[in-house]
């Protein structure tokens, strides 16, 4: 298992390097950060442009810039991932990309993690129930809900949920759900109970929105995988041993049916991060989604690279965890 773990971790490194190269090249070729400045009428003084080019390192060649971006060697001290610097921003001279990310990462991770946990839990539950009651009314209902969720666009559903939240608040005459903001400011100085109610109020609606698509696809997946296992010979043998039904389901069917899901969930995290941009936008959270949108609007290439690379790292990390989990869950993998 140790060899397996070390090998998986080592295997992640080249992928990380590749991700950084791709991130850099894609953003670099996608446009000139100074377009707006150059297009100004009347044209600004060439020295102003030159100054900006120097500040953003646009006067250097692409490989040089990549090297600079990674190591920071030969820069002005505001660049170099290995030194913890993400590079200069177009938004303002004082805008610190690293600090901005650090401030928002927690907010987004809170949402992403909550959505993942609930999507996974509910998907497994729905999948197992559907499989055990195959072709029953319950199965058909869950299937219908699943496809409905898959078909709904996130931004549209987010709008609906906001309206529904407001309507609910009006109905009960109390502020149960907050439909705007991430609630972090309001939670300051509260005691534990206050924090919990705050989290419930602010997080419920965005979490539902963000988890919906993942829940739908994962529950379908879990249903298929569970059905396959339920019809397997070893589940039949477990029954033939005389184990009670619930033990057969939990120990033999569910345990093995979860294995393929780990991969799907790991791959699915990219989709959740994606969805988080839209969800945060609609619910006006100050998270990485908002950071990303601002960066796009400002043509802020280093900020975009930082966001892309961070997402890449999260996806690689998720896959690494899934790989290791796979090793724990499935002895056949462990012994390869």
């Amino acid at each position, binding site marked *: 298992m140790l060899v397996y773990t070390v090998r998986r971790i080592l295997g992640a490194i*080249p992928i990380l390097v590749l991700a950084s190269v791709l991130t850099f090249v894609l953003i670099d070729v996608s446009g000139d950060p100074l377009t707006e400045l150059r297009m100004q009428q009347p044209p600004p003084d060439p020295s102003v442009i030159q100054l900006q080019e120097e500040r953003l390192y646009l006067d250097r060649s692409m490989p040089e810039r990549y090297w600079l971006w990674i190591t920071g060697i030969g820069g002005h001290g505001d660049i170099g991932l290995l030194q913890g610097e993400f590079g200069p921003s177009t938004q303002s001279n004082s805008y610190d990309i690293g600090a901005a990310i650090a401030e928002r990462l927690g907010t987004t991770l809170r949402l992403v993690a909550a959505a993942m946990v609930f999507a996974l839990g509910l998907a497994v539950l729905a999948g197992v129930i559907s499989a055990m009651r195959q072709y029953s009314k319950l199965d058909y209902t869950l299937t219908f809900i699943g496809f409905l969720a898959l078909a709904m666009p996130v931004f549209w559903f987010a709008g609906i949920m906001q309206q529904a939240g407001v309507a609910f608040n009006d109905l009960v005459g109390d502020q149960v759900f907050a439909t705007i903001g991430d609630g972090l400011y309001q939670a300051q100085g509260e005691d534990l109970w206050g924090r919990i109610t705050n989290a419930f109020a602010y997080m419920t609606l965005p979490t539902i929105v963000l988890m919906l698509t993942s829940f739908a696809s994962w529950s379908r997946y879990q249903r298929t995988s569970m059905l396959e296992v339920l019809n397997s010979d070893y589940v039949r043998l477990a029954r*033939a041993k005389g184990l009670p039904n619930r033990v057969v389901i939990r120990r033999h069917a569910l345990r093995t049916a979860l*294995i393929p899901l780990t991969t799907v969930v790991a791959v699915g995290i990219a989709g959740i991060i994606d969805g988080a941009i839209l969800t945060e936008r609609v619910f006006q959270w100050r998270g990485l989604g908002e950071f990303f949108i601002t960066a796009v609007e400002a043509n802020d290439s280093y900020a975009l690279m930082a966001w892309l690379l961070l997402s890449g790292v999260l996806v690689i990390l998720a896959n690494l965890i899934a790989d290791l989990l796979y090793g724990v869950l499935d002895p056949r993998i462990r012994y390869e």
Partner: protein
Amino acid sequence: MTTTDHMSNEETASPGTGDVVLEVSDLSVTFPSDDGPLPAVREVSYVLRRGEALGIVGESGSGKSVTSMAVMGLLPKNARVEGSAKVLGQEIVGLKDEQISKVRGNRIAMIFQDPLTSLNPVYTVGYQIAEAVLAHRKVGKKAATARALELLELVDIPNPEQRLKQYPHELSGGMRQRVVIAIAMANEPDVIIADEPTTALDVTVQAQVLGALESARKETGAALVLITHDLGVVAGHVDRIGVMYGGRIVEMGPVEDVFYQPRMPYALGLLGSLPRLDEDRSERLTPILGTPPSLLSLPGGCAFAPRCPMARDLCHEQEPRLLATDGNGERVSVQVGDTDTHTSACHFSDELENAQPTDLFRGTAVEADTTEAAEEQAEQAEQALAEVDGTSGGAAGGSGREAVLTVRELVKHFPIRSKGLLKRRVGEVQAVSGISLDLYEHETLALVGESGCGKSTTARLMLQLIRQTSGEVHYRGQPLHSMSPRQLRPLRRDLQLVFQDPFASLDPRMTVADIVAEPLRIHGQGNGTARKRVRELLELVGLNSEHGARYPHEFSGGQRQRIGIARALALNPKVLILDEPVSALDVSIQAGVINLLEDLQDDLGLSYLFVSHDLSVVKHIADRVAVMYLGKIVETGTAEDLFRAPAHPYTQALISAIPLPDPVKERTRERIVVTGDVPSPANPPSGCRFRTRCPKFADELSENERVKCVEEPPELVDRGAGHPDACHYSRAVELF
């Protein structure tokens, strides 16, 4: 955990059942289907006495497995079960799952067919056995593990302590089936149901596993229901036998009675369609025409009547009951508890006294599409064959004839690559390690061996479907091994292949005519000529030429295999490579295909390379045989020689591991047993590759003699047996 304390729980055994451990009466199982109710089992009754072994024989779809699943209460919820099944007097049918689970694995246990899928891959072997113990005994985990160890020893698993901690994928198929047997034995059940327990295993391993089952049963005194399609397996292992057909038991009685004096035409037909190791090749097999009935539309009277040569009006009108066979004239029904009487379900079973299969069935090659056409087609085929019979001689031996395909020092290694990005070469599977063969004109050369011995790889190499690592393949003097794919193409006309699985080898989206015509199109024949040729071909293989427009799913397994043969024959090949062509077929169907192959060979002058693991079939069809073990040929010779006096210990073991469908012979014959499993071809033993399992090496040879086996790979030469073998110390032994 005695029987009595269990029975006191629910219902006590009804008086008079005595030592009956399982009593099934009028058990019927119906599945709902889109086309209406499907009666899989119909009014099956039998009793099983303490310690007794009962065999249930039948072909696929006969209901033999469903019956036992019903007894175990393991059928899916939508199955409708009627009648009764009592284990130690306790009714199982209609019982709630929680209550059945107290009986299951405790008083009645089951062994399934496929050991590779029967164990949960994520738990250790020890855990899965201990689990069975803990399900019914109030003992601690430690005691359960100790019991698991005891059970592994009981089923002869070497290094049991180590095995306990291993996962199923670390064990071979034979080992895993022993683990399943250990699980079944965990609570010393009164009844064990074994559903095709050795069908997925190689013959030498089958012998080991059956032995383990036998000894475990002796230890626990459990009664056995052995379900199988293999008449050889039941012959030696059961006291009584029930034959199932169309969801019913059609004949039942002591095993000798049923084997030697079958009183139901179906049982007689089954015996006649079986190729046998202990009989002469010259006898033609007598297949049962037609196909087993669809359970959705069972015929009104006897289910076998449409295929039965002695069927009369009464048979089509009234379903015969299972009655005693020995009452002169008047036949009586038998008391449920009476286990010694031979019973059969045939209106005219009296006429079958001392009947031979050949009295009833004919050795025709044609299988009927529809029953009405059966007679007519059989005659047509016979006439067609009679015309060419004059030119054919079925004699064996290759000498004096021209070799069509020659193989010299053929080697094929498959690389084993490491996982990850680099895919380094970390070893190689030595699938074929230097074999030489000659296939002569108009002969059948059989390549036999157990799974993984390299026989299929050899066949593919001979067709150049894969390329060799080294060595040569010549077809009529042309070096196939060095030709480009383009150069090979025209020669491919002459070399064709028939696959094992008739279900997977036909494209379900193409009509039969298109399938058969495909090779013609590829080799540039126009539509008109192709269509005519397709009709000819379908008739040639005994199918109705009108059925070309149908799709493969409308045909039975045997018919599909005929379609595969027709496709292979489309280009008038000279050589057919037959890769396990009948092993996926039921016995009664298999015989028809074997006969067809024999007729086609005589008719068209074909050469066959017949790849098979089934020595009985090989003995029946082959002129010469090459026995393979771990990528090498260990013995080769004419079929007659090799089966009469095999010289290599592996060949001897292989032949002696094949169960004979003859109860007396099977129980009394001398056995040469091999132990263990085939070593990995990635790391074959030094010297003689068979030495790790060789009974001669283990028991007969002295230390000094063994050195030679370890160090020196034996050459394939004649050592006095009259044919070449690759054993330093070979000695021909007559096994029959």
